[in-house]
């Protein structure tokens, strides 16, 4: 039986029928990781022996011991959790993130921790202290980022599904570049407790899967209010999987002209045009809309996110966890010098840039000009979406202006890297849910992604549109050959 080729729900059905055991499933993925991850570098912390031992201790639950890969910024009790940063070298959290607790209660098996840009700072997975992850579709290309390890591990069939986190596109962009499904839920839908914070007002945890049904099931499990995260919202979680409905007749879909004016790859534009034709044939109605402040989103985001990051990363000071410098300290002020040296040695270049940028934007004399200004523009960007959703049920755009780019191509030009997030950033600023699904391949056989944006707490409409599309196409079934 070809285990690794199946979706999570297909595997659960086989487990249900008793045709396979969770041990066989975990063993099949571990074997594939062992034989092929040297080419991909998706896993950064993996202990196959412990994983297999753990199966016996899992509670009975609807996930029946099904494995899952976890981004390295989610705390798993007593397992290495390092945000792919040298400064968290050796860190083993004394507690589980709420999403991990929920998964384990449902009987999921944590397979291991997967690679990411350091502290989720990046769009290519190249800023990791463990070296880049390679795109399974073409190993010379980046998998996208920051959840590059999560997306690549699903695309390479090392795991049926994975969790990632999305602050400005970090689930959707790698999902797009690796040809898998990725959802950033509405801000507040999923508890962030135990997610090592990058930008607290933007971060959300979400699923990366082979298809929409798996994404709906995984969101069912991780969503919900948590008193340990005061920004999680206390409203009912619908059963997204049971409510999946492929009937999209009469659904009003917006096409934001500002997104289509961007100089995207023609193959990307063509793919989206084909999606529109298919959805039209299924009865959806299209309408051109305007999100007039789109061109300010990247500048707004790259002030707010680094500002919040500079504050969140203050905790990495060589005292409570992780790295502390071995270098000789200045006799006059040894404590300050310990901070300076520990952080100088422990943070990589992009983490340094962002902390410095954020500190600058928040510093006296520049606060109003940068940070406060960005918060005001953020209000305008949110308002654009509120206005648009008065007339449409959801919005579609490309997820990324291009397919996967070559490793090394953008890493020395931070601004060019930031601009690759142009289509994904606004959803985080506005807090709305956004889904990326595969919708084509370029001539070079690199995946193209479609983004569906929805109203706050209306993930169901996104799933339904994507489900209708996947019932009538097979892009989500195309697999990378590794």
């Amino acid at each position, binding site marked *: 039986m070809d285990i690794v080729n199946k979706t999570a729900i297909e595997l659960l059905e086989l487990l249900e029928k008793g045709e396979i055991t969770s041990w066989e499933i975990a063993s099949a993925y571990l074997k594939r990781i062992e034989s092929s991850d040297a080419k991909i570098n998706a896993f950064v912390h993996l202990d196959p022996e412990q994983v297999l031992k753990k199966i016996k201790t899992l509670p009975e639950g609807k996930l029946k011991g099904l494995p899952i890969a976890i981004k390295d910024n989610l705390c798993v009790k007593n397992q290495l959790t390092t945000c792919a940063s040298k400064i968290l070298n050796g860190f083993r959290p004394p*507690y589980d993130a709420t999403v991990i607790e929920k998964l384990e209660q449902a009987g999921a098996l944590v397979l291991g921790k997967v690679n990411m840009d350091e502290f989720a700072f990046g769009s290519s997975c190249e800023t990791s202290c463990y070296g880049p992850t390679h795109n399974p579709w073409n190993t010379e290309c980046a998998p996208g980022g920051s959840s590059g390890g999560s997306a690549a591990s699903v695309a390479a069939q090392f795991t049926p599904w994975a969790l990632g986190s999305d602050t400005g596109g970090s689930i959707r962009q790698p999902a797009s570049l690796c040809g898998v499904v990725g959802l950033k839920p509405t801000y507040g839908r999923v508890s962030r407790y135990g997610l090592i914070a990058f930008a607290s007002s933007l971060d959300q945890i979400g699923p990366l899967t082979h298809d929409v049904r798996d994404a709906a099931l995984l969101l069912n499990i991780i969503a919900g209010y948590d008193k340990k995260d005061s920004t999680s919202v206390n409203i009912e979680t619908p059963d997204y999987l049971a409510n999946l409905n492929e009937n999209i007749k009469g659904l009003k879909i917006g096409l934001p002209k500002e997104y289509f004016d961007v100089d995207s790859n023609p193959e990307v534009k063509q793919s989206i045009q084909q999606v529109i034709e298919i959805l039209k044939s299924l009865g959806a109605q299209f309408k051109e809309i305007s999100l007039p402040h789109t061109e*300010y989103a990247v500048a707004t985001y790259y002030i707010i996110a680094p500002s919040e990051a500079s504050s969140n990363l203050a905790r990495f000071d060589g*005292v409570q966890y992780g790295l502390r410098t071995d270098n000789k300290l200045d006799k006059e002020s040894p404590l300050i010098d310990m901070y300076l040296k520990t952080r100088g040695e422990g943070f990589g270049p992009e983490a340094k840039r962002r902390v410095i940028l954020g500190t600058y934007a928040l510093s006296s004399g520049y606060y109003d000009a940068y940070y*406060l200004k960005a918060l*005001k523009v953020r209000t305008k960007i949110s308002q654009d979406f509120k206005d648009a959703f008065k007339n449409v049920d959801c919005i579609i755009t490309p997820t990324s202006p291009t397919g996967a780019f070559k490793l090394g191509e953008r890493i020395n030009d931070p601004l060019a890297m930031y601009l690759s997030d142009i289509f994904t950033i606004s959803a985080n600023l506005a807090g709305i849910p956004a889904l990326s699904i595969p919708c084509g391949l370029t001539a070079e056989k690199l995946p193209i992604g479609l983004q569906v944006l929805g109203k706050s707490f209306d993930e169901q409409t996104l799933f339904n549109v994507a489900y209708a599309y996947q019932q009538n196409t097979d892009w989500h079934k195309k697999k990378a050959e590794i």
Partner: protein
Amino acid sequence: MALDKIQVKYVAKLSRIELAEDNLDNFTSQLDKILNYMEKLNQLDTSEASASIHVLELKNVFRKDENKTSLPNEEALQNAPKKETGQFEVPKII
């Protein structure tokens, strides 16, 4: 130019990050380029806009002040690079 080397050095120090001297030129030009791009926001009139610190309407969350089990000392210290008699050890301050 929005930013020069002296400012970058100063802000790095505020950020408690030691920057290698040979990185400074590269960092300064990258940060300067990024900040110049941010100038774009000044094209926009925001005099009427409120500032969104957050997308949700956040309220203070209160709870009763009750004793609960907290992390045992040993576990709280399990990741400390240096510890001494049940406490985090830091370089001499005074």
